């Protein structure tokens, strides 16, 4: 499923036109993105949680050329699937 299919499903589910479902979807996603950009975590019961991990700068190596380079500090988001979703995804196995 992609974003536009998700918007269509949302419009049907709550019985609102696409032109409303689309901005509502964007608000939800933007709110989540802004939280992560601020370094905050997200916790949604039954779905999962997102945390941002901070990495210090380190000296890495280009595996092809062997040249050492300084990898700048970075932040990366991680998702941990919630208990309910984890179990239900696995039940379909």
């Amino acid at each position, binding site marked *: 499923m992609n*974003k536009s299919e998700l918007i269509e499903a949302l419009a049907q589910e*709550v019985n609102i036109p696409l032109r409303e479902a689309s901005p509502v979807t964007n608000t939800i*996603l933007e*709110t989540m993105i802004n*939280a*992560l950009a601020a370094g905050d975590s997200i916790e949604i*019961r039954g779905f999962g949680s997102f945390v941002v991990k901070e990495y210090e700068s380190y000296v890495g190596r280009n595996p092809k050329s062997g040249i050492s380079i300084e990898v700048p500090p970075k932040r990366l*988001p991680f*998702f941990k699937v919630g208990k309910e979703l984890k179990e239900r*995804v696995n039940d379909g196995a």
Partner: protein
Amino acid sequence: MTLTKANLIQTVYQNHNLTKAQAAEAVEAFLSIAKNCLIDGDDLLISGFGKFNVKKKKARRGRNPKTGNELILDARQVVTFKPSGLLREKINQGK
């Protein structure tokens, strides 16, 4: 700070012409559609955010780290998340 479902409902309520109940319904529906997609074993691709993949793991031999006993870990399905380039960029802005 941690963002929760209540925060999402509040933001939807503040930014759209919906009642509080409708905003709550929309957020709940959004989450249940996303969940059901993954429960059906279908990948969820959200451009600008990231993708959630359902991966099938094969059964494998494992070991109880405490007792050292060998055991078979059953085949299972797990959800993985890969952030989009755009999300990674936004998270690293101002760093």
